[in-house]
């Protein structure tokens, strides 16, 4: 596998935006001759930015789960739901299959993203050679599933607009949902800042 030529070794680089292949340049202000997007061999400060965004997301994830995301109010009672209690309720009263989907989107996916991205960052920093191909696949998985965590945010938005029967029955968003939306944005940005080519770059020997 390792005999296949890589762009950097051949003195070439590919444009991120339009994919044109051009001669290598280390000019930081270089732009693609075809689409004029900035050219760079590797994403700028990829590891530092990715870590910063990932840690921010992880911090926001605590209030996102601890605070309730919505309030269901009817004539006689008031019920604040967190992400997890919403899932339990959906399992009991609605349909278990949707509860599984919501659980996957709002709990499993973000946690997996923290773990996988953290693992990728550490393994790149330690110049690990193990399972590069598998790590490359993990990265693409993280990129693919990231935005599905918006699911519960949209559910709260729809229900708040829909259930508006004055005093009889109301659904209102609570702060947890704001934190949760931020978690999704920050994890997506963290995944975008990571440069998967580093997985193949930092190996100690050839």
């Amino acid at each position, binding site marked *: 596998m390792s005999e*296949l*030529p*890589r*762009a*950097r070794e051949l003195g*070439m680089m*590919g444009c*991120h*935006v*339009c*994919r*044109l*292949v*051009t001669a290598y340049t280390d000019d930081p202000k270089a732009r693609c*001759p*075809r*689409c*004029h*997007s900035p050219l760079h061999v590797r994403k700028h400060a990829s590891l530092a930015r990715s870590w910063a965004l990932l840690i921010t997301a992880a911090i926001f994830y605590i209030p996102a789960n601890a605070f309730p995301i919505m309030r269901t109010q009817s004539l006689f009672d008031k019920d604040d739901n967190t992400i997890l209690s919403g899932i339990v*309720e*959906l399992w009991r009263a*609605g*349909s278990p299959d*949707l509860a599984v*989907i*919501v659980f996957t*989107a709002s709990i499993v996916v973000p946690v997996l993203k923290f773990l996988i991205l953290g693992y990728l960052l550490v393994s790149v920093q330690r110049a690990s050679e193990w399972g*590069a*191909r598998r790590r*490359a*696949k993990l*990265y693409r998985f993280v*990129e693919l599933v*990231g*935005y*599905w965590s*918006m*699911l519960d*945010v*949209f559910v*709260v938005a*729809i*229900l*708040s*607009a*829909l*259930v508006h*029967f004055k005093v009889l*029955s109301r659904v209102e*968003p609570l702060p947890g*949902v*704001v934190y949760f*939306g931020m978690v999704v*944005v920050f994890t*997506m940005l963290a995944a*975008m800042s990571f440069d*998967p*080519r580093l*997985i*193949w770059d930092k190996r100690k020997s050839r």
Partner: protein
Amino acid sequence: MDKAPSLIVCEHCDTVYRRQPLARGEVARCAVCDAVLERHQWLGVDAQFALVLTGLIVFVIANVSPIVSLSLSGMTADTTLWGAVIAMWNDGAQIVAVLTALTLFFFPLAQILMHGWVLWFARSGLRAPGFRQAMSALVRVKPWSMIEVFMLGVLVSVVKAHTYFDVVPGPGIWAFGVLTVLVTVFASHDPRNLWDVTREIRT
């Protein structure tokens, strides 16, 4: 700077390949990291334009018609996508309101309009005015457009509300369903190929 249009670099591991013509249904994958290099473009420019136009019409329907309506002891309530955005804004979740408006309205709309604009010119083999900006914006906006997720969110909301109310699906829900299908078709299509099939307008 030297250009090499016959080469393609894997975006995920930097391996260089010579581009091969692909047959229908074929996908070129990187031999090193297994990422997709290129897919066969099975829709012609005209067909893509027709789909974008369909997308625009369906998008309008999805945004003006109610998604679902509820009834509770004689009262009914329904909502559109914008109803949801406004409700979040008024209830103190402005950040979420902005996020929802961007990912479900502005980004998808921008995608449809820019794609339609470049395709309209690409039908005669030309690069539209602002082609360069539109093409790079299309690549950047793509991950932030979340129609598919919203569709699933609507389904979950319907089931949740169904416990307490009578839920009637509105025309908006079908429009969003069709949009989800169109988005999926487009996701298998790389707009960057338009660089290869178009040329600069000579003035």
